């Protein structure tokens, strides 16, 4: 599903450069649920950005679903992002002047679907996250948990191969966090591959595999017994 070999990335800071990723090797199979952990500055977000094609590595190889991701034009990157990836962010990143349904339908718009199809698909995904009744509410009228569920519905809308979550519960209280995690686990149960960045131990334990980063290298990569989030809800 996803292979990464000898990935390097550095950022220029003034005259020097900051070497953030120092040779990452990572391979993820279909249906996995991986937590990438590490303290801030460990390079976990950078790794996620590169996987998400929001950023590009300096060297190394990145293969997604058999496709070498390298030297993409902006346009190609946009098309791949739309086709392969679904993003879930810590701060939800909903467009504030669009209602829940329109937010969910946005990736479908960029896929070039007809309005009617978009509406139907978006409604379907909103129902799936249990927000069918909130379809016409603006983000500011929704609670944090609801916003994150809209964001998840949006990430799912384009039926991506890989879900990328950047601290998906970082802005939520623990009850809501567990609700969201339960939902993400359910998606994984249905077969979605999920990659998640977190620094919370209990959230990471709800995944099936934990990859620990420190100073730009992987220091630990282990499969774990998943803790089901339903137990906390």
């Amino acid at each position, binding site marked *: 599903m996803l292979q990464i070999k000898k990935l390097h990335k550095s950022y220029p800071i003034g005259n020097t450069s900051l070497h953030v990723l120092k040779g990452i090797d990572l391979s993820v199979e279909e249906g996995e649920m991986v937590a990438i952990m590490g303290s801030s500055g460990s390079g976990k977000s950078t790794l996620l*950005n590169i996987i*998400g094609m*929001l*950023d590009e590595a300096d060297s190394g190889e990145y293969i997604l679903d058999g496709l070498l991701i390298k030297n993409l034009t*902006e*346009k190609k990157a*946009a*098309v791949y*992002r*739309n*086709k392969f990836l679904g*993003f879930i*962010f*810590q*701060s939800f*990143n*909903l*467009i*504030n*002047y*669009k209602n829940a349904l*329109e937010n969910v339908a*946005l*990736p479908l*718009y*960029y*896929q070039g679907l007809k*309005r009617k199809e978009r509406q139907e698909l978006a409604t379907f995904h909103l129902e799936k996250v249990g927000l069918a009744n909130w379809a016409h509410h603006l983000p500011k009228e929704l609670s944090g948990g609801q916003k994150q569920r809209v964001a998840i519905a*949006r990430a799912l809308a*384009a039926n991506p191969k890989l879900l990328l979550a950047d601290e998906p519960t*970082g802005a939520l209280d623990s009850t809501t966090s567990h609700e969201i995690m339960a939902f993400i686990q359910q998606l994984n149960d249905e077969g979605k591959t999920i990659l998640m960045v977190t620094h919370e131990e209990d959230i990471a334990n709800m995944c099936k595999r934990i990859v620990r980063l420190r100073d730009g290298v992987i220091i630990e990569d282990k499969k774990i017994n998943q803790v089901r989030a339903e137990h906390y809800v």
Partner: protein
Amino acid sequence: MFDLDLWREIFQSINKNRTRSLLSGFTVAFAILLFTILFGIANGLQNTFEQEFVDTASNSIFIMSGQTSIANEGLQAGRKIQFKNEDYDYVKEEFGDKVEFITSRVFKSVNASYKTEKNSYSLIAVHPDYQFVEKNIIKEGRYINQNDLENRTKVIVIGRLVEEDLFINESAIGKYINLNGIQYKVVGIFTDEGGDDEERIIYMPLTTAQHLYGNNDYIDQMNLTYSPELNYEQALGFSNLLTRKLKSRFSVANDDQRGIRVFNMAEATQQVDQMTLGLTVIILVIGFGTLIAGIVGISNIMIFIVKERTKEIGIRKALGATPRSIISIILIESILITAIAGYVGLLIGVGVLELIGSGLEVYFITNPGVNNSLVFGATITLVLAGALAGYLPAQKASQIKPIVALRND
């Protein structure tokens, strides 16, 4: 090109960000508003000039007499020069090949009455050619003719407003008007584009007036139009020659400005044309400056808009928006706002001109208004410029890196 969904996106964005859209629109609307008003006023001034001259043929020459101001050939200053019929004949004979139409004029002021209606009017006694020199348009009946001159008939041709004043709801043709105690038959009614004053005039055969009001052959003024084949230089040469000949005929010094005056319309027209041109240039410069100010305004606000929308653009890109779609959404939005605002400014400007326009005649501004094609041209220019101004920010927006935009802050 017409992508309904794109327009839906744009309208939603405009609608949901009304303050921002209003702000950017305001600059444009204001620029176009100023431009419209300025141009309207310039046109008003131009209209005034044109109206002053439009009723008289532009190839006219007026020959007037007065008192000499310089002693000459043993004659002292202060001598009164009086034209007579023989002078009219002299000009006609001497310059026959260059003259198109020629007429003498005798001025009188008369009290006119018909039944119970009374009013006073200017009376001008003329030759038949006068119709063409003054560009009178016969609305009904006929003009003064040669027969009238030879027989000194007591007929008059009256202006449209004279008829309106004296003949309420009646046709004046064939009726008799009393002018200072003498009855005249109305044979024609004319209109004139020179405004109301020019339509409150009564014309009479020259000979009739000379016979009845003085029993002499005096002429107050001669008007002629030169052959349209003469160019500006030739026309000027002709009027100079005419002046010299007449001055020597009356023993008036060549540098005497008062004894005999010859006014060549071509000269005046040329001056007015130059002035109008100057005015147009000034207005264009000011208008262009205003437009540039408007453009800079749009550009500024577009940069602000892109900055404000960084996050949204980042989200869109993360969800699969191509750079092209980002550019088009920003660009079309700015063009749309510019076009609508420009149109609003135009409408307000035209409205203001309509509203205050009629009150400005005191300031030599007549019918201020704007040429539609010009203002639409300006709006299109503004839209194009808005697109240009919006392009750089849009380009910048398309290069926004999603990671930067989505960084938690």
